[in-house]
């Protein structure tokens, strides 16, 4: 590992200041479970490391007043998400997505902020958070801005964060409908997703058997987490029959843009998108 300057700021303002001063050559560290791997492998050699774990502004899972939205601080660990009663009660698909990740030792270190900002196409929390219509709350020297999480990712390892900007929290709207996350990986634990699928809808009309505000989000099958918008339209175009679900699943597979790699081929990933989207939609319908 190349030498680096080390900072452990106590406030958000101080952190942004250091990050801006290094003008892109500084890296923040939260859990370090993505960053340190890259640094150990020599794939990354920042001039400075900024430990953001002492920033109180980035902590906590809270229900916001008035909107009742849930605010999840960027430093919230995967294990905290897995165990939080508030998340279990209202966003159980998010808790179960966290439960599919890594091991308890890694989940105690790894943060939701790191999972988003590392911006791996396979990041497990991305599809479900986007399906739940989450917003990224970002802060930097110029102040706070909010970006729909769907627009946060710009490419593998890339996000909309500018120099000196930090992810403060992700905010999830009050959950009214149903949601599910399905991860497909060869091993049950300690493996990243070959395909991940998050599905959520906000309303369901039992008479018409029709779902409203459906969001289908695919992980690990495109440069960024991907909304399968045509498949969503198909789902919302009429009653949720088995045939419509089959059609939507096929459309989602066509919308995906996977690559061949050690974990799976293009053909296999497409096929698994179809299988998992179908399974996800059927799961939601059957739980009505």
């Amino acid at each position: 590992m190349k030498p680096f300057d080390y900072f452990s700021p106590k406030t958000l303002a101080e952190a942004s200041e250091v990050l801006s001063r290094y003008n892109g050559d500084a890296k923040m560290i939260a859990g370090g479970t993505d960053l340190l791997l890259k640094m150990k492998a020599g794939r990354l050699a920042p001039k400075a490391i900024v430990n953001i774990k002492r920033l109180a502004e980035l902590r906590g899972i809270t229900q916001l007043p008035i909107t009742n939205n849930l605010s999840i601080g960027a430093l919230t660990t995967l294990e905290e998400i897995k165990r939080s009663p508030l998340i279990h009660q209202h966003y159980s698909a998010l808790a179960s997505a966290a439960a599919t990740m890594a091991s308890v030792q890694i989940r105690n270190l790894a943060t939701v902020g790191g999972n988003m900002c590392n911006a791996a196409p396979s990041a497990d929390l991305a599809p479900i958070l986007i399906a739940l219509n989450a917003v990224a709350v970002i802060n930097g020297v110029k102040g706070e801005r909010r970006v729909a999480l769907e627009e946060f990712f710009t490419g593998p390892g890339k996000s909309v964060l500018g120099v000196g900007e930090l992810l403060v929290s992700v905010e999830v709207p009050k959950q009214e409908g149903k949601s599910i996350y399905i991860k497909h990986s060869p091993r049950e634990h300690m493996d990243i997703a070959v395909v991940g699928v998050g599905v959520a809808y906000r309303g369901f009309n039992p008479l018409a058997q029709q779902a409203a505000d459906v969001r289908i989000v695919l992980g690990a099958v495109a440069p960024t987490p991907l909304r399968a918008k045509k498949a969503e339209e198909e789902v919302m175009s009429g009653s949720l029959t088995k045939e419509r679900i089959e059609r939507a699943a096929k459309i989602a597979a066509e919308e995906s843009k996977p690559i061949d790699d050690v974990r799976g081929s293009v053909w296999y990933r497409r096929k698994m998108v179809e299988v998992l989207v179908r399974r996800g939609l059927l799961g939601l319908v059957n739980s009505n």
Partner: protein
Amino acid sequence: MVKKFHLTLNVNGEQKELLIDPRRSLLDVLRNDLELRGAHRGCDSGDCGACTVILNGKAITSCMTLAADCDGDSVITVEGITPADGLHPVQKSLVEDGGIQCGFCTTGMVMAAIALLDSIPHPTEEDVREGLAGNLCRCTGYKKIVEAVMNVERK
């Protein structure tokens, strides 16, 4: 020249003050500065769990943690849970139930099991398998280890 970092760490109940290179992992500092060699260096990438210690009450992989990030924190290693004149109940159970062979993974297993039993005092087999999913063992095939951890409270 690398600017050294002044690290304050509570290790097994004792306050330690160290000057370290900020690049160093918690595992490296424990083993080489504090001579606590119970936590092992296996994969050095968070996959094998041989380096598991308890940081502020939670099991973590110490190879994937910068020591500097732990300034002011408390660490418990396998040396800290082992009584001077015997064994911790988890260690005893592993010995009695044949959950140990070469021993390389054992210290990590012990720490992960202690953290697990701390949060779930009466775990199911599934809880134990889940709680030890981040600890690789190449000798035992896991069955005996899982049984030993399940049996701790019954002994």
